[in-house]
């Protein structure tokens, strides 16, 4: 299938990009890696009249240490995230989850920023950003601002990005010394996650001092499993304690029923997978 015709702009600076988006208004759409957008254009599920390609913004592509953590440019490709030793050191959870995104070809073009800004509830990286307590760096008509990952995902396919905003990059605090794990359940290798669980655990002397758990596809946005976190915090790092906490994974979730799974099954999976993710993160079992 062939996309509807559109105007194409390829700004060379962030300011130009913001201006182009401002001028385009609701008819404009950002093109990052294009791996979600182009299939939608081909099926004519999306038909913007102006496409603003961020591909020339080389400054938005790259990974560097930044204070106590990493700053990853929004246009950094998944494959570059995977190949980066700093990512493996500071936020191995991001590497682990990124390795499960789509397939190799898609990871060669798809970008971290594109995945987050697309905000598909079945996408893996939004929950990972939440579990890692990431913050989003955003440029817009009124200047630059920072939004925590927990506030960035607003609704189904909707983020805190305004129509003329550009996601510049993502700051990830270092999780050196934490145990982390992404547990993804998909029907088939190519399929989106039915449910995914991103777990981060910091242990002290055999107890869990701190835990953040975020769920993929258990609602229109990634869901922080607060009840699980509360139950884990201060608990012994044992299989029983983790199993008890994981049983609370469904609290606060709003899973949907669709062709691929019922809400009931998703809720069940959330508890099983949370147990597995936290156990792996905590090195238990």
């Amino acid at each position, binding site marked *: 299938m*062939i996309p509807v015709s559109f105007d194409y702009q390829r700004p060379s600076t962030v300011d130009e990009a913001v201006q182009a988006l401002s001028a385009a208004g609701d008819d404009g759409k950002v093109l990052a890696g294009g791996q979600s957008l182009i299939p939608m254009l081909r099926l004519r599920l999306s038909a913007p009249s102006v496409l603003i390609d961020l591909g020339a913004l080389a400054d938005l592509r790259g990974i560097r240490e930044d204070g106590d953590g990493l700053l990853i440019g929004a246009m950094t490709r998944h494959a570059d995230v995977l190949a980066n030793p700093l990512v493996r050191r500071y936020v191995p959870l991001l590497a682990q989850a990124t390795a499960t995104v789509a397939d190799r070809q898609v990871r060669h073009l798809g970008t971290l920023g594109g995945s987050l800004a697309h905000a598909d509830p079945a996408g893996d990286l939004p929950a990972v950003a939440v579990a890692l307590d990431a913050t989003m760096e955003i440029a817009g008509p009124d200047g630059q601002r920072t939004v925590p990952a927990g506030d960035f995902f607003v609704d189904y396919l909707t983020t805190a990005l305004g129509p003329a905003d550009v996601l510049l990059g993502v700051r990830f605090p270092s999780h050196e010394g934490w145990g982390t794990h992404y547990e993804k359940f998909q*029907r088939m290798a190519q399929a989106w996650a039915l449910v995914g669980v991103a777990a981060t655990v910091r242990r002290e002397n055999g107890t869990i001092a701190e835990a953040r758990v975020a769920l993929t596809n258990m609602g229109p946005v990634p869901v922080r499993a607060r009840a699980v976190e509360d139950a884990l915090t201060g608990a012994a790092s044992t299989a029983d304690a983790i199993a008890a906490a994981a049983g609370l994974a469904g609290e606060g979730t709003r899973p949907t029923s669709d062709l691929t799974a019922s809400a009931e099954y998703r809720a069940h999976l959330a508890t099983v997978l949370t147990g597995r993710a936290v156990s792996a993160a905590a090195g238990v079992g």
Partner: protein
Amino acid sequence: MTITSQAPAAEVGAARKRKEDARLITGQTMWTENIVVPGMLHMAILRSPLGHARISRIDTAPALREPNVVAAFSGRDVADVQGSLPCAWPVTAELVMPAHPPLAVDEVCHTGEAVAVVVARDRASAVDALAAIEIDYEPLPVVLDLEAALADGADLVHTDQTTNKAYTWIFDSAQAGTGGAVDEAASGAEVVIRRRYRQQRLIPAFMEPRSVVVDATGDQVTVWSATQIPHVLRFLLAVGTGTPEHRVRVVAPDVGGGFGGKLQVTPEEMITYLASKRAGRPVKYTETRSDSLLSAHHGRDMIQDIELSARRDGTVLGLNVRLTANMGAYLGLVGPGVPILGAFMYNAIYKFPAYRFECTGVFTNTTFTDAYRGAGRPEATYAIERIMDELAVEVGLDPLEVRRRNWIGHEEFPFTTVAGLTYDSGNYEAATDRAKQLLGYDELRREQAARRASGDPVQLGIGVSTYTEMCGLAPSRVLGSLRYGAGGWESASIRVLPTGKIEVVTGSSPHGQGHETAWSQIVADQLGVAFEDVEVLHGDTRTAYKGMDTYGSRSLAVGGFALVNACKKVIDKAKPVAAHLLECDVSDVEFADGAFRVRGTPDGGRSLADCALAVFAAHDLPDGVEPTLDADDVYDPVNFSFPHGTHLCAVEVDTETGRVTIRAYVAVDDVGRVVNPMIVEGQVHGGVAQGVAQALFEEAVYDADGNLLTGTFVDYTPPSAADLPDIVSDRTETPAPDHPLGTKGVGEAGTIASTPAVVNAVVDALRPYGVDDVPMPCTPERVWQAIRNGGGQS
């Protein structure tokens, strides 16, 4: 040349690398979509977004005002010339056959039905201009459920019909004289097992989307189409359009897979023809994947009600099968006959004394169904192999033991079954023993017991499928008795060129099977020429004017027979020429190891090439010797062939999530003698993959309004490499006694065998949880639900 050397090594049986590959691995393949004809236009099709509706108004004129648009028309514009798409298999005299216009005229009966087209200079312009077509629909009730469709007062799929029932077709062994009555068998049985199985709707999903180019601008109509059946298409296009058959040429260029999905005369082929006629230019149409999933014919989709009567010792007394088969909105080319092909296979490899089969074909407001790899036989094999496992559980026997107590012993062939077929040969014991050994069956049973005892959350299941199938479609007289519209013969022609090189023309039409290689091997042996010196021509009715095409595992079983016969005729024609060259009497000439020799004289032979050159010059041929060695043969089989085998599958089931992982898969197939073991193994691998896909992964789903929810590869999900196991494949070899090569056919075997092997394994793993069935595909959620509904671990 004078021949003194040793005979060449036999080609048949060798794992020859394929001749076809050179162009395919370098990107030099001639797909239909690659064909460009001077002046060619592009067509886009507007399809119904509704499952059932009356078209109250349609206006294509606004599309003509869009840039680059040359023509636009709807069904109303061509109503008097477009005719009705053919159904070649009216299985009963009373069959209800609704008109199937290529472009809907007043009523659309399934989502995706073509309603109008735009023909433009380029594809993008054609697609863009579809939006300008004005069309109003009045929605009509949508009929989807098979049983509701048959109820009194049901809404109608076609408002001009009075029923949704297409036909009922019955076979009863008591009436046919091939066995007893199933009711009597049931009343005298110690065990009666009744089950309902659902064959979900599948989509063939060949990788190459269908594509067609029609040049109808001159006296000749030329059609290039990604089809399995260029010959059938030529005949039906001629009949359907009134074009004299000798002015129709159909070419199937390189075709990217079919699996039955390209065994069709499609609406798109006919519409493209109409477009070329109207525009006066050649026209191309290539479907998108979403078009293909929506509107290319679907497969399977049946409800199977099975009743098996047996004694406590596991001996089966009778089998009663009631099928309800979803035809979709129309009758496809062979659609009504697909379940009937299965009718002869429900009794499988077993000696059942009584059998009854009844199938009711039902219309629904869905894409029409037709052949998909196996076509009726996978469904039959699934049902019988699933219920044999239920019998094994009921009488407390190992599933292989209950099969052994019922199957035909190798010494009992030829064996006439309760369905009236005569199985020519087989050795179920040998294939089963080999499969058990390769899987480590007994060891896995011990591991299964240990896991059950320990309450392991990951349970092990072992699934069995001992299958047979009928290949070599088909004896024409049998097809006639089943009311099929054509014969089942196949043709072969051998052209011996002056230099001794050979052209083979086959009426088969391969689309991935490797005929160019296998046919070359056969001819090399038969004629004593080099493999490289044989060129196989196919798929163009100008060169291969006579053929019945490729489906139903028939090409080698039927076409190979014709090929050998044609080769023998060549040798017979060459003998007088060789006698002339050898200066001996023709009765003294013998042909062996590639040479014509005077009987009893090992040296001084003449080759076929010598004879070819002699007839080319023809200077001094004896009187009455025709100056050609070319020969044709058309072979009509006297019987089907019956490959068989035993497939065993071991699965691990995560009882917490429901995920099924295939741990080991063993396929032991007996397809008779093998021309090319490499190709045979490839057919088994691919067949098993498709059968596993039915068991675990694929299903076409409509919502309550008749919208196809699985309209892209995101939702209709053929498995990738990461989803499939390694397959251990091996063969036993029981030659087909009536075939000159001893071959039986292999194209569908893997698909037929594997689906029940996998599902039997899943159910076997979950027996302790009170589970006796998981509907296909056995998705993690369905497995989890089955465990929940099963009442917990016993």
